[in-house]
Structures are given as structure tokens and as C-alpha cells.
């Protein structure tokens, strides 16, 4: 999956790693209502895959808003199991205060 605007820090990007052995998606930048438009193709490609366990590595993700959370929920609904890795404390708390810890499990970092 192509990287999108990685040079522009405020943009979001999604990158697929180890796609053949199971899916690990790396998310970076700021995933909000404005940046999500540019991610639409990557999201659609992900959702077209077979439902297998999915891990999302958020090491490089700095911010997420409710629209970004909605994307995570779509991914969680599509794939068998989803796991959030390396989310920063801000993002972890967003997931917690939304009562989404069971839907978007915060895995071991």
C-alpha cells in the first residue's frame, strides 16, 4: 500500500507491512476529518482484504479524532480481531473515554 504524503507531517498515512503473513498496518501523522479524505483509497483497499487478524501500529500516529476512530471501528468490524499497538497516551485515553477498549483492544506495546 502506498504511503501518502509522508513528507507532510500533519497528514495521515497508512502503510501495510508483512501483508502476506498477517496484516500489520502502520498509521502515522494526524488522523482527523481533514486528513482522512486522502486515506480513502488505502482504507478501501484494506477493507477489500479477507478478514484476518489485524494489528495497527500507532508508533507514528500523533493524533486521532472521532472520524479517525470511526475508521478504526470499520476496520475492527471487518477483520476478525484487531489490536492497537504502541498508541501514545493521548490516543489510548481517547479510546478509553469512548468506552471502546473492548472493540479496539490496546495490545501489548
Amino acid at each position: 500500500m502506498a504511503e501518502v504524503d509522508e513528507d507532510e507531517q500533519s497528514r495521515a498515512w497508512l502503510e501495510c507491512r508483512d501483508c502476506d503473513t498477517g496484516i500489520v498496518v502502520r498509521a502515522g501523522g494526524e488522523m482527523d476529518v481533514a486528513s482522512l479524505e486522502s486515506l480513502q483509497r488505502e482504507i478501501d483497499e484494506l477493507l477489500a482484504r479477507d478478514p484476518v487478524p489485524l494489528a495497527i501500529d500507532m508508533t507514528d500516529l500523533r493524533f486521532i479524532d472521532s472520524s479517525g476512530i470511526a475508521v478504526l471501528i470499520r476496520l475492527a468490524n471487518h477483520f476478525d480481531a484487531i489490536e492497537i499497538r504502541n498508541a501514545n497516551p493521548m490516543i489510548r485515553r481517547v479510546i478509553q473515554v469512548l468506552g471502546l477498549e473492548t472493540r479496539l483492544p490496546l495490545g501489548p506495546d
Partner: protein
Amino acid sequence: MPRALSLTVVAGGLVLMFALTWVASVVYRHDNDRLLTQQVRQVGLTLTSDVAVIQSELSDAAEVANATNANPSSFDRFSNAHIASKSFVSVSLWRVSASGATEVAHTGSTSRLESTGEASTFFAGVRPSAQLYVVGLLSGANPRLGFAAMPADETSSLAVYAEVALPAGRKVQVASASPYGDLNFALYLGAKPEATQLLEATTATPIGGHTASVSMPFGNSQITLVGAATRDLAGGLSTALPWIVLAVGCAIALASGSIVEYVARRRAYAEGLAEENERLYLQQRDIAATLQHALLPALPVVDGMDVAARYAAGVSGIEVGGDWYDVVVTRPGRCVFVVGDVSGRGLHAATTMAALRHAIRAYVMQGDDVATVLAKVGATLTFDDDHRFATVVIGEIDVANHRLTVASAGHFMPLLIAGESAAFVEGHIEPPIGVGVGEPRAVSFEVPPNATLVAFTDGLVERRGEIIDTGLERLRVATANTHQPLEDLLDDLMSALTTGAGEDDAVILGLRWQK
């Protein structure tokens, strides 16, 4: 305006260029004048240098004649040599006295001076001095120029007189290769270029066009040399320079004019666009705010409670948001409040919000408890269809019994302010509406008298780059120990917590027990 500016630039450029052209041409003309005057002066100097030679020769001859008492043989030797070399056409020796002048000896042709009878007049002015006396014999077919010298000795009475023939038609040729080949000139006897006094000229006289003129001492008289250049002395480039300056200058002026025009047009266009965008933005924002307020309910009167709400559009508030609040009186002494937030923005979020609000109202009016309302309403929103979810906090208030029952689907619990303390209600938070099949659970507890409940949406507490707990704590601290009227409290909270940085819409709903 842009046109006026660029025209001004063109005009300014042209004026500048004309000025430069004028300066260049003045410099050129000045140069040419200076060169012409210089050359004419040099020609004059060459001509007048002959005077010294003639003077010394004639003086020498006169002195010899005096010394030898007009010995004809020594005079002849002198005069014959000059006649032979054709430097003079006539040489004669004269005895000059107060009573007149008499020719003593003569070599060569008859002097025109004598034949025209001007001798006595001329010799009356000749004195023993170092001076050379010049006479122009310019009328008639064979014009001549006469010179006389008398030794500067009071005792001498002899003068030597010689005549040179002027060229036929007084026309002389100057070799074009000579240093003066670029000049036309005319030589006049006297201080002024008078036609009758013309000695010789290289061209037809008077010389027209641009001329330089110098007058120089010539014996006891003067000669005047008038010169004109046959071509540009300062060189071809100098001639062309003013025109080059003018052409290049005009081109530059027109080019800068068009650049200014282009830039000004672009700027005017951009400004127009910016104004239009600003207007559209404000219009859009206005529409969004109007629509939002239309979608939000008027709050009911609840006996025994103060109820107030505030809604603030975020800085990105050109679209309707999905935030809402609602208060429903279910029966006397009981009411249900709701604060919710649909993810995303725009008309879709707003319609989802309106649908949810009305669905919740309907379930509440049916008499369902708050947890059941959340469970039922969760089925009305299908996330997989429109990829939206909603966070909702819903609470039931028993006014008289000071009882509060609250349930949340992904939403912040309300803040409870009582006396000196302010604390968020503790309770289980289920996933948001639309996300899952949670089992909403409500918490129920008794609140102290005069307690204030503040429910809100994330716009009030969220800042980008800040952990959410910081925003919640900011709100908590701002409300602690407050005794303000509810309306004032909400105004202060809104202005204190949403100043500037708020990107998102913010809703605050306040409920206060009057007892």
C-alpha cells in the same frame, strides 16, 4: 486601478528614457562640438604658424637692406629665392617715410598693392616694429594676400613687402587622409567671417550646418577659421547612442509596464477571490449556525431546577456539527437530560443527530429508563451503513428526592458540583451508539442539595496535542467552588474553555437543584 498603475509605470519609464536620451544626445553634441572646435583650432594654429616664418624672413630681408643701404644684390638674392620657390609671387623693397612710400626694388610680378593704388594707404600704417603687417587684396580675378615687415629699429626706413597668390576660386583641397580630412573649413581675413574677406575654403561658402569658428591673431590683423565636420567626429556609436538608449529604454518601460499590469491583475484577482471566499465562508458559517440552532430544542421549565445550555461553533464551524442537548420533562418532578455528539460534520452528521435526538425523546416519553433508552437507540444507528457513531450521556433526575441516574455510551460523564467540590460522575462507559452491542448500565445515586450538574461535549475539553484528562481537569477546576448563577457559570465556562483553540463544536448543559 491596476491599469492606472501600469500606465504610470510606462509613462514614468518613458519619461526617464526620454530624459536619458536627451542627456545622451546632449553629451554627444557636446562631444562633437568640443572635437570640432579642437580640430578647427589646430588647423588655425597650423596656418598661423606660417606667420612667424614669413615675418622673420621679411624682417631679416629688411634688416639686410637697411644694413647694406638697400643694396639691390642682397635683396635680389632673397627675393629671387622666394619667387623661385613660389612661396611669393611678388617681392618688393620699399622706403617708407612720413611723406609716403616709394618702391625701391622689385622682383616677380607687379605687386597688386601698387597696381591697385593702395600702397600709400597700407604703408602709412607700417611702422618699424616686430610686427608683420597683413593686407588683403581680395577683389578682382587674382586675389592676393600681402605681407610687410620693417625691422624694429627707429633708424630703419626700409620695408620688405611680399605677396602670395590665393588659389583660383579660393578653393583648396585637403587630402582626406590628412588629420583634417574630416573637416570643411573656410578662412577669412579679419575677426569675422565676412564673405568679401574670404581667403580660401575647402567647400562652398558660407559653410552651412553645424560649425565651429575660431579667430586668431594674424600679423597686425586676425584670421577667422570656420569649420564644419563632414562626418561625426565622436564616432558612429556616439551618434547611435541616444537612439539605442531610446529604443532599449522604451522596450524596458513597456516591458515593466506589462509586468506591473500582469502582477496587479493577478493581485486584484487574488484579492477578489479572497474576499469572495471570506464572504462565502461567513455565509456558510452563518447558515451552519442557523441550522444548528434550529435543530436544538428550546429548554423546558423544570420545577425546582435551573436549566441552561450553551452551544458554540468551533473555528472550523462552517459546517453543521453533530453536537446536541435535550431536556425532557417526563412527569412532574422528573426530567431526563441528554447530551450527545455524532462523529463527523456536515448535513449528514446533523440529520443523524436530529434522528437520534427524536428517537431518544420518543423512548424517554414511553417511560423507558435511561439504560434501556441507550440500548434501544443503539439499534437505530447502523454504523456499517454510514460509518458514523454517536456518543450519548443520558440522565434522569428526580428533583424532590435529589436522585440522579446516569448512563453513557462512549460519552463523558457529567461533572457534579456540590458545595466546595466538583467531581465527574463515576460510572461505566459503554461503546458509542452504533458501534456495538453493549449492555448499557446506569449508575444511580443521591446528590447533595443545590448541586449543579454540567454535561458537555468534547469541544469543551479537547485540545489537539493534549491528553484528554488535562482538559477534563481544566473544566473541573474552573467549576469548583462556584456560587455563580447557572447562566453566568455557563457563559464563563464557554468563554474560558473554548477561547481560540477550539476546533470542534462545544455544548454545555447545566442543571441545578434550586434546593
